[in-house]
């Protein structure tokens, strides 16, 4: 067991008293407002600054002015950030609830490694050079590794330890393969070193339309799993006694997490820290109820991702820092602060 929360730390999932519920709803609304602000900032800020009026003009009365073109260009990137952010946050929250393990994230379960290995294979052996080509490889790599980890972890009756170990084992094996190819093939290295840091700059309408169906389906599935995941948090025996289908919940959670993080990784590279960090932040003010954690994570993760992207554009102007680098450098200290401040094993 990686980190096991002592039993006394598991708060019970009693329904919140009315005033707390009102506060949580209010908090959700505030989060949405913040999200809208960050979205506008993401469209306005960059090498060419736009005023809010220009953003408004470009969004709703586009007439082909210079500002409108810039807005259209940044819009696809922003939409990708919104989608990928929500997907990563939901995937992280579901994985942490599923494995009852605060360290769980798509990286730990090998899903990022699967996507990376598939992309490298596509570039090296199939000569795929366009993003729209290797998006599909990345997606199927992530899905295949997710399924493999699920199977190796014991499919029926998987335990948190087994899942984590299986994920580590698979990603280590794939990592060796990845390194070997990058050493033997300079072309693959040239591409991969940019893809592996994670960036939203690849966002285009075609990327978005390719990943949207998967992200929507995955998000709906994840949100629908809130109740059974709540039951699972009480421990397997109690969950069974409460009428949860353990294996079905595990399989569906794995499916949701794989679809979400696979598609997000395919579109913008492995951005690891969002899925690990946001659920921790969210839990610190919602408590352990997944029915609140999941919507909050879906709204606050894009805030983090887009905020990091905007920051990356401001700091390194007129060039930019890739968003994966900014999220890690920002998120790391916050995460360490949380680890120090709270008992982190609250799941």
């Amino acid at each position: 067991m990686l980190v096991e929360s002592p039993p006394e730390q598991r708060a019970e999932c009693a329904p919140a008293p009315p005033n707390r519920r009102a506060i949580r709803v209010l908090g959700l609304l505030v989060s949405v407002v913040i999200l809208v602000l960050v979205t506008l900032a993401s469209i306005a800020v960059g090498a060419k600054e736009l005023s809010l009026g220009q953003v408004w003009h470009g969004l709703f009365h586009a007439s082909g002015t210079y500002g409108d073109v810039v807005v259209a260009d940044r819009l696809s990137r922003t939409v990708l950030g919104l989608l990928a952010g929500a997907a990563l946050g939901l995937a992280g929250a579901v994985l942490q609830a599923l494995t009852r393990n605060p360290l769980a994230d798509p990286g730990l379960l090998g899903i990022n490694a699967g996507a990376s290995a598939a992309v490298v294979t596509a570039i090296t052996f199939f000569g795929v050079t366009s993003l729209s080509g290797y998006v599909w490889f990345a997606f199927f790599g992530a899905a295949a590794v997710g399924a493999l980890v699920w199977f190796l972890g014991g499919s029926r009756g998987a335990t948190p330890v087994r899942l984590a170990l299986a994920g580590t084992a698979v990603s280590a094996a794939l990592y060796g393969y990845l390194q070997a190819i990058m050493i033997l093939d300079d072309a693959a290295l040239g591409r991969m070193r940019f893809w592996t840091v994670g960036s939203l700059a690849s966002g285009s309408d075609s990327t978005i339309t390719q990943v949207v169906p998967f992200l929507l389906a995955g998000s709906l599935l994840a949100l629908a799993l809130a109740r059974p995941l709540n039951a699972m948090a009480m421990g397997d025996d109690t969950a069974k006694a409460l009428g949860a289908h353990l294996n079905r919940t595990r399989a569906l959670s794995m499916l949701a997490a794989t679809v979400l993080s696979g598609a997000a990784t395919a579109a913008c590279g492995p951005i690891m820290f969002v899925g690990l960090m946001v659920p921790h932040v969210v839990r610190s003010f919602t408590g352990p109820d997944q029915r609140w954690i999941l919507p909050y994570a879906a709204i606050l993760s894009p805030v983090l991702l887009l905020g990091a992207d905007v920051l990356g554009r401001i700091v390194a102007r007129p060039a930019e820092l890739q968003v994966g680098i900014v999220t890690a450098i920002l998120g790391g200290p916050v995460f360490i602060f949380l680890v120090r401040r709270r008992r982190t094993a609250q799941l």
Partner: protein
Amino acid sequence: MKTNRAVRTPGGLSVRLDVRAFTVVVLLLVVALAASVALIGTGDFPIPAADVLRTLVGEGDAGQEFIVTELRLPRVLAGLLVGASLGLGGALFQSISRNPLGSPDVLGLGQGATAGALTVIVLFSGSANQVALGALVGGLVTGFAIYVLAWKRGVHGYRLVLVGIGVSAIVTAVNGYLLTKSDIVDAARAVVWMTGSLAGRDWDQVWPLLALCAVLVPLVLANSRGLRMMEMGDDVSYALGVRVERVRLLLMLSAVLLTASATAAAGPVGFVALTAPQLARRLTRSPGPNLVAALCMGAALLVTADWISQRAFGADQLPVGVVTGVVGGVYLLWLLVTERRAGRI
């Protein structure tokens, strides 16, 4: 089978000997030496094992002597020392964090050393020795940062691993940034370094590592009794008279030094620190940190992996880190399947 046997000497001293653990250690040493001899004999100029042994005791011909003592012996010794340091460092970290995944790879020490090395490669285009120094500094700074950040009235297992993961994420991002900043030649050099390789290691790398091991290994083993107590929890160890925080600081410092200097010598060879202690524990079947067995297992693993990479892909085509990564991963998979069949996890 009776596994523990007391050995009494006429002088009144007595030692408790775990027969199985002792046998495992001896066997691992034999494997490591056999692999070393095979590795010395492998290359563009193959030398039969008998000639290798004859040359090592000083009775070979001049040509073979040059190849063996100047070119291949230092590489093999570096491999043995790096493997031993990684195995011991991994065992220490896993025992301190009480977590099989709390190895230096996961905690970010490897990445920290990589960041130091990458800084030297990308920003200064430094020589091999400067890269090694950068890696050493990077590893030590990372280890220090993790310890300080995890400190809060003592360092606790969970917090150590979680803080390590956070630090590792930050450092990995810095590494990614450095890689995207570099030109393709530096990037290729950096990737080879990041995989971990023994190619071209000479006596300059061996001596410092050997000196460090000569100091640290006895120091660590002298404190292993306290470490074994600490696996039962801090309170119990206090009650049994172990100065928990002092032992932990000392052992962590040793583990960081061992890992960082091994990484400086050969690059972050993946997975040895993670697998060696686990394998050793399974072979000896004895509780506790199994430090000696983990050390021997690390040495045997790394040299064997290097030999495999030389045989399978031709001389110096692929660095040893590729083999340890793939073999280690496949081993863990096999372990999972068999353990699952036996219903043990």
